[in-house]
């Protein structure tokens, strides 16, 4: 029997039993939808982390010298204690680094994690939960901050510990109606009076978090208010991405000299890029990618068994039809192909519906949560291939049962 004829028969049979086919396919639809949706969300997050998060936290073409790595990930207690014993990064160490990397575009110090939050108020207006960061002037270059109004921080502001502040866009927006009129106004940050010196252009959101809800102070002023952080960070920005790797090596060497570490002694600091964050994320997704297929495989096998059952039922119900076909000359292979075509078509349909459902699910997640979604072609083709092969594998037994039927017995069969 020609393939086209088999396919036509299969589709008609499925169309004749729409509801039954749907319930048969539920297992496959759910499994495939789950696969497609999870993969879509992870892929979306991957792209997002790479494109936005990393740049937003560390800065473009930038790396950091830190006491604690950006992403700690899964470490044991011993490693954690080792990190705790590391000395705090000192401002003088930034000088060693800048001497080692004269071609750096900017080298900055910034107060580290955890970033304190404070109420910021002007006259009767107050904005709560504003992140307060202390920085040296080059930090604004590292982060590619554009000035929306006023002036950026300067070296002198830091050296003289001037009581000035740069506002994130959202904070300024909530406090002032007119940005230009805001410059020079005295606002209160955690009770301290500081003058608004500038406002940074909008940075947007990353993972649903606004990047514009901060107040930036000269590092010296910050430390006078909050004390020195245990986690002060040196940021280095290079003009070109290609220079980052080499600069990181030179920074490491400079830090070892500053700390007078002997050869063979381990670093008591970390030179880190956002790559670390990406690596952490990739490790996480690798775990998800091993768990998801296992869950999907179970669902698919269960779905396959359901298909096999339904096909056996269908063979039973259509015993007379098989007898009729055999009596007019259908060979075993003709009957086998007919039923195989049906189970493959059925399972592939399940795969297709699963893809549609998974896509819808991913879109829904993307709309109601900050998680982005990105449908990948490979997950779609894997889902389709999976559906087709499940139909093939679990269709073989029912199809060969049908093919082996004796024509006379099949014709005599009464429901």
């Amino acid at each position: 029997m020609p393939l086209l004829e088999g396919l036509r028969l299969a589709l008609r049979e499925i169309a004749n039993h729409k509801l039954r086919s749907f319930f048969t396919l539920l297992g496959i639809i759910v499994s495939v939808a789950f696969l497609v949706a999870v993969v879509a969300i992870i892929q979306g997050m991957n792209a997002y982390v790479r494109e936005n998060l990393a740049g937003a936290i560390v800065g473009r073409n930038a790396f950091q010298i830190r006491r604690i790595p950006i992403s700690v990930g899964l470490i044991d207690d011993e490693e954690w204690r080792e990190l705790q014993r590391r000395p705090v990064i000192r401002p003088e160490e930034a000088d060693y680094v800048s001497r080692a990397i004269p071609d750096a575009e900017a080298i900055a110090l910034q107060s580290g994690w955890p970033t304190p939050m404070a109420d910021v108020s002007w006259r009767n207006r107050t904005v709560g939960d504003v992140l307060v960061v202390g920085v040296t002037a080059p930090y604004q270059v590292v982060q590619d901050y554009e000035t929306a109004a006023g002036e950026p921080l300067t070296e002198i502001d830091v050296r003289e510990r001037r009581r000035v502040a740069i506002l994130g866009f959202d904070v300024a927006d909530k406090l002032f109606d007119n940005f230009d009129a805001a410059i020079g106004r005295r606002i209160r940050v955690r009770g301290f009076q500081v003058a608004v010196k500038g406002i940074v252009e909008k940075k947007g959101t990353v993972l649903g978090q606004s990047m514009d809800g901060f107040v930036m102070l000269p590092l010296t002023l910050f430390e006078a208010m909050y004390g020195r952080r245990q986690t002060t960070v040196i940021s280095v920005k290079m003009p070109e991405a290609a220079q980052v790797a080499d600069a990181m090596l030179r920074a490491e060497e400079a830090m070892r000299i500053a700390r007078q570490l002997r050869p063979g002694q381990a670093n008591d600091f970390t030179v880190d890029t956002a790559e670390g964050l990406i690596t952490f994320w990739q490790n996480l997704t690798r775990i998800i990618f091993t768990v998801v297929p296992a869950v999907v495989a179970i669902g698919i096998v269960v779905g396959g068994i359901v298909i096999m059952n339904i096909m056996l039922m269908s063979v039973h119900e259509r015993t007379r039809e098989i007898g009729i076909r055999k009596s007019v000359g259908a060979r075993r292979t003709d009957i086998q192909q007919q039923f195989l075509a049906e189970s493959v078509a059925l399972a592939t349909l399940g795969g297709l519906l699963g893809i549609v459902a998974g896509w819808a699910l991913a879109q829904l997640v993307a709309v109601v949560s900050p998680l982005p979604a990105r449908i990948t072609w490979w997950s779609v083709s894997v889902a389709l291939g999976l559906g087709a092969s499940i139909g093939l594998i679990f269709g073989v037994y029912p199809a060969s049962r049908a093919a082996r039927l004796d024509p006379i017995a099949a014709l005599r069969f009464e429901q």
Partner: protein
Amino acid sequence: MTRDGSLIRVSGLTREYRMGAETVHALRGVDMEIYRNEYVAIMGPSGSGKSTLMNIIGCLDTCTVGEYWLNGVEVSGVGDDELARIRNQEIGFVFQTFNLLPRATALHNVELPLIYAGVSAKIRRRCAAQALERVGLADRMQHRPNELSGGQRQRVAIARGLVNEPSILLADEPTGNLDSTTSAEIMGVFDGLHQQGQTVVMVTHERDIAARARRVITLLDGRVHSDTVREAA
């Protein structure tokens, strides 16, 4: 009667069914020969082995012992696929219970043998339509079996049996489920086909139907009891 060749020759045909410890002897050594263009009626009491013999001749079943030659080719002993090919190309089989696909149209039912013969869709349609015209159902091609009368259903089944231009048309009590008027119509169809040169072998219980055939073979208890050829109809 012209005897331009033996179409079917069976000898020592035996068919046993094993029912647990018991053995049912449906055929106990049947010898007979059927020639081209013959019109043969097979009669005999219920359980005498008529259907069993027809099924073996129709390659739907195989004998336990014995020889079966069709068109000069030995059929007993060939494989499953070859039997399917013979059913498809050499034989048209008409059943008492019609055995049509309930969801398919008359046209599609008649096309069925051609599908397994690998005939292209266009030619299939034309041949099936011609076969339906031959049995007088040109105006019912798109009807499904449940939209047709019993007699019309049997006409569709006959058209399906004819569509591959088989060497022999076998019918096992084709009028068994029909009233007498409709039976007469269906018998008229068979008569017409025989007159066009079609070899017909038909199982029947009714004397007046058997009377239309030139030759009547009577089975009794799995053996040929009598074989009479009448001259002049």
